[in-house]
C-alpha cells in the first residue's frame, strides 16, 4: 500500500507496523532530502503528487515485483509538500522470507518508484533559484 502525506513521515510507527508481520527478512529503504544538487546548496524541496494515480501505479509496481520475488508484504509512504534537507522523502519496507529476495525486491520497487510514480520534486536553492527535477 502507498500513502502520501504532507506531514513528516513517522518512521517509528512504520517500523512498528512491520513488526506485525513475521517474515524472515525485512529491508527498509529511506530516501532522504539531499542538501545539494550539483554545485547548488538546496534549502528545501516541494513534492507534489497525484495521489490516486500514485497509489494505482504503486500497486502495478508491486504486482510486477510479485511476479519476480516472493513478496510477503510491502508498505510505502511518500512525502508531499515542503520538505527540508535531512527529512525522509520516501519510506519503503519490503518483507520476504529470505534476505536476498528482500534486498532485490526493495531495489526493484524503489527504482520503479523513482522512474514511474507520479510524484514531482522542485528544488529551491540558496542563490534564490529553483527548478523542477527531471524536467526536459
Amino acid at each position, binding site marked *: 500500500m502507498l500513502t502520501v502525506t504532507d506531514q513528516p513521515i513517522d518512521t517509528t510507527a512504520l517500523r512498528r507496523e512491520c513488526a506485525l508481520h513475521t517474515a524472515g527478512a525485512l529491508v527498509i529503504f529511506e*530516501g532522504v532530502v539531499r542538501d545539494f544538487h550539483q554545485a547548488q546548496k538546496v534549502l528545501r524541496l516541494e*513534492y*507534489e*503528487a*497525484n495521489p*490516486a*494515480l500514485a497509489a*494505482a*501505479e504503486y500497486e502495478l509496481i508491486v504486482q510486477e515485483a510479485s511476479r519476480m520475488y516472493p513478496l510477503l508484504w510491502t508498505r510505502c509512504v*511518500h512525502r508531499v509538500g515542503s520538505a527540508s534537507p535531512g527529512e525522509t*522523502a*520516501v519510506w519503503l519496507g519490503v518483507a520476504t522470507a529470505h534476505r536476498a529476495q528482500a534486498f532485490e525486491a526493495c531495489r526493484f520497487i*524503489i527504482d520503479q*518508484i*523513482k*522512474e*514511474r*510514480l*507520479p*510524484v*514531482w*520534486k*522542485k528544488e529551491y536553492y540558496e542563490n534564490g533559484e529553483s527548478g*523542477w*527535477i*527531471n*524536467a*526536459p
Partner: protein
Amino acid sequence: MITVRIDYVAMLREQAGRASESRNTNAATAEAVYRETQAAYTFTIPVAALRVAINDRMANWTDPVRDGDRLVFLPPSSGG
C-alpha cells in the same frame, strides 16, 4: 465539440498559470488535446516526455477523448 476537464501538475501548472480547467475542444485524442494546450500555454515539455491519464487511469496518447473526460498530463517523475 466536447468538454474535457484538464488538471495541470508541477511544471505544467506553473506554465499554464492554473491548476485545472474545463476546455471545449474538437480534439479526438489525448495527444491532440495536449498539443492544443501546448500551443495555448507554450508548454515546453514535448509530448514524448509526458504520460497521460484519463479518468484516473494511465492511458495512451492515441486513446480517444470523450465528453466529460478528465485528463492529467504527467511530467517525468522525480519522486523519492
